[in-house]
């Protein structure tokens, strides 16, 4: 079932003639673009992150989530499988589930008490045969045709993805080899332990946050905290790898400790002599065999996987209309983490989320970008750092990953 849209201006001709080095600002507030994204990206052939399987460990456990802006229920059935349903009663459309999470034997609609089992099958319709021979469903009403709308589900390394499409490629093929390797590096098969949620609603289009993660250029310029306390430097070893589509990208850093260079002087702190009063907030221990101190990955369309210091999190960008999105952070560790590692993960979370000593900068600046880009005459962003290509790259002063995102975006959107 596809929605017929009437958006005559949305064609390849709408894109600036320079190509991927320009991103037109109408992408951030046009309702027709937003509607088309929901249809072609989020309800198209994509694997959408919905939850960690550890959020629903036992039969009957459920959690609310989203595929694009469509509310869904993630549930564990009695066979131990994870199911994902549209959070909508097929009778009259009421939302079945109003809690963030819980445990249920079945889902019952509050409106007319239609009841669905944990596989989404319709199990009960009150007064189905009518009362005193009056009314009721027709004799040919078939409950098997009125279950909850189920999405395709794939689980890898304890991470649950869902798709409205039944012909989406397998997850390994979807990610491509280099990005799959980094996904498996964090989600290596160890049991995950959920440490908790941070959620924020940001007054900006959802794509801004994906671009933000794919933009290492800003990290040492906007994030003064990183520079002040010498956590990041513009000249550090830095590499980016994109899959063939451009939709998936990973970037990683090696923590380096060298003397000042020309690059660090240009981005240097005015507070070079300051020290943290309690440095535990950034004291990390290496925990991955490759020795890399951090890797950030964006998985098409709207998942960010964060491994920085000893902080691990998924960040799920949920669109909420053209000019707003929600960022749902799920912080986690591993079931076999010793207590001191759990403490580090909790401490390092001070850098991230809506109150993050670093990430709060991003939340604020995304709002500022939205306001600037979408008001006034038509315009477009300039994305030329590192050239015009979308290949793998090294160094932080490079926008190849933003261009890669829009290469795939244009392909999927047909613009």
């Amino acid at each position, binding site marked *: 079932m596809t929605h017929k849209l009437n958006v005559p201006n949305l064609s390849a001709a709408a894109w600036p003639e320079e190509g991927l080095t320009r991103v037109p600002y109408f992408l951030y507030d046009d309702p027709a673009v937003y509607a088309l994204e929901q249809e072609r990206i989020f309800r198209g052939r994509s694997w959408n992150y919905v939850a960690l399987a550890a959020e629903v460990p036992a039969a009957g456990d459920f959690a609310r989530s989203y595929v694009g802006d469509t509310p869904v229920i993630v549930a564990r059935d009695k066979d131990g499988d994870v199911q994902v349903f549209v959070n909508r009663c097929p009778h009259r459309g009421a939302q079945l589930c109003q809690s963030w999470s819980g445990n249920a034997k079945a889902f019952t609609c509050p409106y007319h008490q239609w009841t669905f089992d944990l596989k989404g099958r319709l199990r009960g319709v009150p007064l189905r045969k009518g009362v005193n021979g009056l009314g009721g469903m027709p004799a040919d009403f078939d409950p098997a045709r009125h279950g909850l709308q189920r999405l395709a589900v794939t689980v890898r390394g304890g991470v649950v993805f869902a798709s409205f499409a039944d012909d989406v490629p397998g997850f390994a093929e979807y990610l491509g080899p280099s990005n799959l390797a980094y996904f498996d590096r964090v989600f290596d098969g160890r049991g995950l332990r959920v440490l908790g949620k941070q959620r924020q*609603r940001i007054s900006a289009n959802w794509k801004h946050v994906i671009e933000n993660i794919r933009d290492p250029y800003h990290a040492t310029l906007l994030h003064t905290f990183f520079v002040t306390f010498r956590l990041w430097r513009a000249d550090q070893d830095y590499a980016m790898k994109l899959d063939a589509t451009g939709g998936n990208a990973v970037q990683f850093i090696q923590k380096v400790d060298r003397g000042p260079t020309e690059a660090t002087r240009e981005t240097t702190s005015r507070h070079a002599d300051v020290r943290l009063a309690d440095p535990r907030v950034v004291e990390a221990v290496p925990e991955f065999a490759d020795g890399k101190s951090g890797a950030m990955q964006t998985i098409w369309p709207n998942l960010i996987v964060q491994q920085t210091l000893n902080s691990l999190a998924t960040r799920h960008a949920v669109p909420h209309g053209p000019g707003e999105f929600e960022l749902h952070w799920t912080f986690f560790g591993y079931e076999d983490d010793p207590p001191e590692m759990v403490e580090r993960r909790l401490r390092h979370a001070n850098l991230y989320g809506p109150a993050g000593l670093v990430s*709060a900068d991003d939340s604020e600046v995304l709002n500022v970008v939205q306001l600037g880009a979408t008001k006034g005459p038509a315009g477009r962003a300039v994305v030329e750092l590192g050239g015009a290509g979308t290949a793998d790259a090294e160094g932080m002063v490079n926008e190849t990953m933003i261009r890669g995102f829009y290469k795939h975006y244009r392909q999927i959107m047909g613009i």
Partner: protein
Amino acid sequence: MTTRPIDRNDLAALYAECAAALDDGEYERWPAFFTEDCSYVVTTKENLERGWPIALLSCESRGMLLDRVFAVQKTLFYVPRVQRRLVGGARLVGAGDDGAHARASFAVFETLVGEHTTLFAAGRSLDVVRYEGDALKFAKRTCVLDSSLVPNSLPFPI
């Protein structure tokens, strides 16, 4: 540790002065309302009820409060705003080895340049207070936001 009973006027003044320091942008005054070994946490009702230990903001010492103040004053980027904290319903609910246990409700209003005033956050705080000399201080302060969703960002303490 002193077993001196808590003067309710001192408790009310502690909440009011702490809120005023933050509302007035005098962030450097804020850590002094806490003991050296304090804990200061901002979390959500959702995390608390699920037993999830993550917090939006989690300081385990007065040093971490000082670092947060440094970030607010020197390193964080945020658009200009005015915040107004209303603290009400302060009450003592018991005592433990760590001090007297207090509860209060709070609301934080926020005014951005060119915008109406909005309600930024509401919630309750689970606090432990004790005297250091003559001064009543927070030994623990846990601010629990009613909503799981923070509007934009939370650069400042509650």
